[in-house]
């Protein structure tokens, strides 16, 4: 199949599923599970088809680019689509069994599908306002999903998330209005052409600050992170996995990468580069320090999400080819192991009824699959050698050291060395934190209260094993993944001119 022809289906299939599932549920309830899994499976197959396909654009309504909305498939979008489809498939499979303890399952699937549609829409679009619209689709679906249990904490977290998320959206659309007033276009490639020809003026700088605040709120960078530690643990486990594994990346980090690399033209040593690096460093340090003291399993994971996204932002902010490569690879790895960790936390919670680490213990005898996959993910996130987290962190550290020597040729920038040292330190603290998780939940003596604990259902185990295999595979086969998936994405991002040529032609 031609990559160009299937491009709109990435949004169309989940949208159609989301619209129809509540109606189908009235006719035949059992069908809903199957249809939801099939819809996401179709996305996975299509995502595999577009990997390695040549870059192309899809003109909605056949209008030439600056006049109509267009979809853009470049290696970066292809990578994001593959991540989204892969994790969504595992999560949907997991939900089939996990969500039976909640009511209104059809609405759950409908919201899940529309969230996937929103994320796919964001990563594929080439139009700034369209990105805002699909961001709202994904975000609003997630507000509903966080409150899905309708208990005190969930409603409170959802409200907090909704207010801060909408505030972020307000900043973003204010920025869009300012950029439109100055360039007269909404197409990102056209905008990049005009800005690169005319240079940044004060208005564009002001707008980019607004974008940074808005997307920073969505990505939970540190001064804007207040909602994440509440929202991510309160959601049902599969949704926590979606939020931490995908949503903050697709809505926050991807948008920042696309805008700052392609539209505003980030280069190493520019102000944008320093600001992004500063945000990344702050997120890394603050996130991990807050995480170390946590005893709530999911809350601990949520704080680690902030910290790990700091790594990604740091890599992106470096602006060098190696730094960007590390940042993108860590983005890919993080979505694999963090979703897996949240699914494991969900399994533990379902079996034992608790997620307080102090109340757990000895689960490795009772829940072998959960324990094994949880260990794999923990080793990955703390950066132990053969696993995937190690390679991406290594690349980021090497890139930081390299930048110390290359930013200003002939001199050594001590700041970059400090950054590399802090990165190593944060990685060590992450390891400490996950040793604690392993010790208190999986090993040690089994408390009497938990003597009747059983392994979770087979479907849930399959979902977790899939993600664990992905973690190991990304680690062991990292040279192939880097060459085949991440490096093309990196090259596409570094070459802004070819993006403009691809979209506008000529």
């Amino acid at each position, binding site marked *: 199949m031609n990559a160009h022809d299937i491009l*709109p289906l990435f949004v169309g299939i989940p*949208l159609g599923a989301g*619209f*129809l599932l*509540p*109606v189908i549920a*009235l006719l035949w309830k059992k069908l809903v599970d199957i249809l939801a899994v099939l819809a996401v499976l179709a996305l996975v197959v299509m995502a595999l088809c577009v990997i390695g396909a040549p870059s192309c654009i899809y003109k*909605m*309504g*056949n209008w030439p680019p600056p006049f109509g909305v267009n979809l853009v498939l470049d290696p970066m979008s292809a990578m994001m689509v593959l991540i989204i489809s892969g994790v969504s498939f595992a999560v949907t499979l997991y939900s089939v069994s996990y969500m039976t303890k909640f009511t209104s399952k059809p609405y759950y699937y409908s919201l899940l599908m529309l969230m996937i549609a929103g994320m796919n829409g964001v990563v594929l679009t080439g139009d700034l306002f369209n990105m805002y619209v699909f961001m709202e689709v994904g975000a609003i679906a997630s507000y509903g999903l966080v409150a899905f249990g309708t208990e005190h904490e969930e409603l409170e977290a959802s409200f907090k998330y909704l207010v801060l998320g909408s505030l972020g959206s307000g900043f973003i659309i204010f920025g869009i209005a300012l950029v439109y007033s100055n360039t007269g276009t909404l197409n990102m490639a056209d905008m990049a052409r005009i800005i690169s020809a005319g240079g940044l003026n004060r208005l564009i700088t002001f707008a980019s600050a607004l974008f940074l605040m808005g997307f920073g709120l969505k990505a939970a960078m540190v001064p804007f992170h207040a909602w994440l530690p509440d929202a991510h643990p309160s959601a049902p486990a599969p949704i926590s996995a979606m939020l931490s594994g995908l949503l903050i990346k697709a809505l926050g980090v991807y948008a920042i990468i696309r805008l700052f690399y392609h539209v505003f033209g980030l280069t190493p040593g520019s102000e944008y580069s320093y600001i992004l690096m500063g945000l990344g460093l702050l997120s890394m340090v603050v996130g991990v320090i807050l995480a170390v003291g946590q005893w709530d399993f999911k809350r601990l994971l949520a704080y680690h999400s902030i910290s790990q996204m700091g790594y990604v932002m740091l890599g992106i902010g470096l602006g060098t080819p190696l730094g960007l490569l590390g940042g993108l690879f860590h983005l890919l790895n993080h979505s694999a192991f963090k979703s897996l960790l949240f699914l494991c936390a969900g399994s533990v919670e379902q079996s034992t009824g608790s997620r307080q680490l102090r109340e757990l213990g000895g689960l490795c005898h009772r829940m072998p699959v959960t324990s094994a996959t949880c260990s794999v993910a923990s080793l990955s996130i703390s950066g132990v050698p053969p696993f995937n987290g190690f390679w991406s962190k290594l690349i980021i550290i090497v890139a930081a050291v390299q930048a110390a020597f290359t930013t200003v040729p002939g001199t050594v920038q001590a700041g970059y060395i400090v950054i590399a040292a802090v990165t190593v330190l944060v990685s060590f603290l992450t390891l400490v934190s996950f040793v604690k998780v392993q010790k208190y939940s999986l090993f040690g003596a089994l408390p009497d209260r938990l003597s009747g604990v059983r392994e979770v259902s087979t479907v849930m185990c399959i979902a977790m094993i899939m993600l664990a295999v992905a973690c190991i595979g990304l680690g062991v086969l990292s040279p192939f993944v880097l060459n085949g998936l991440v490096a093309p994405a990196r090259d596409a991002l570094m070459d802004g001119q070819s993006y403009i040529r691809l979209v506008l032609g000529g």
Partner: protein
Amino acid sequence: MNGMSPIVKATTKVFMGFITVYSLNIIAYGHLTPGGGFAGGTMWACGFILLVLAFGKEDAFKIVSQRAASVADCLAAFTFLLVAILGISAGGFFVNFLSKGKEFNLVSAGTLLWLNIAIGIKVSACLFGVFVALAIFKRSKTSSEVQ
């Protein structure tokens, strides 16, 4: 609670007709005059909300129930998507594949009219649905407080 006084009910009956006709007019002429699916659909939803307020929930739900609104919502949204997909027959998503007709006529501008109608139904159904959900929630709460 069975709604408001007979005067209000009688007036509502008259006005409901006007509101329906006016909102349908706004929807259908969206491509020629100001207005369109969203404005007209919201207006229509206001009409239904008036109906619920005037006649009370029980009587109003005999005319249109929340489940019907929900189904109409889903199907209208899907219709919009379907029109977009049908554009593939003429070369791509969202291609205006119907004949454009003569300007300033009601049936002109290809798919625009049908998309407006789909949006109008969708918006009215879902706003009515959300109002009803909010209203029902209050009732269930007070009844549980009474117990």
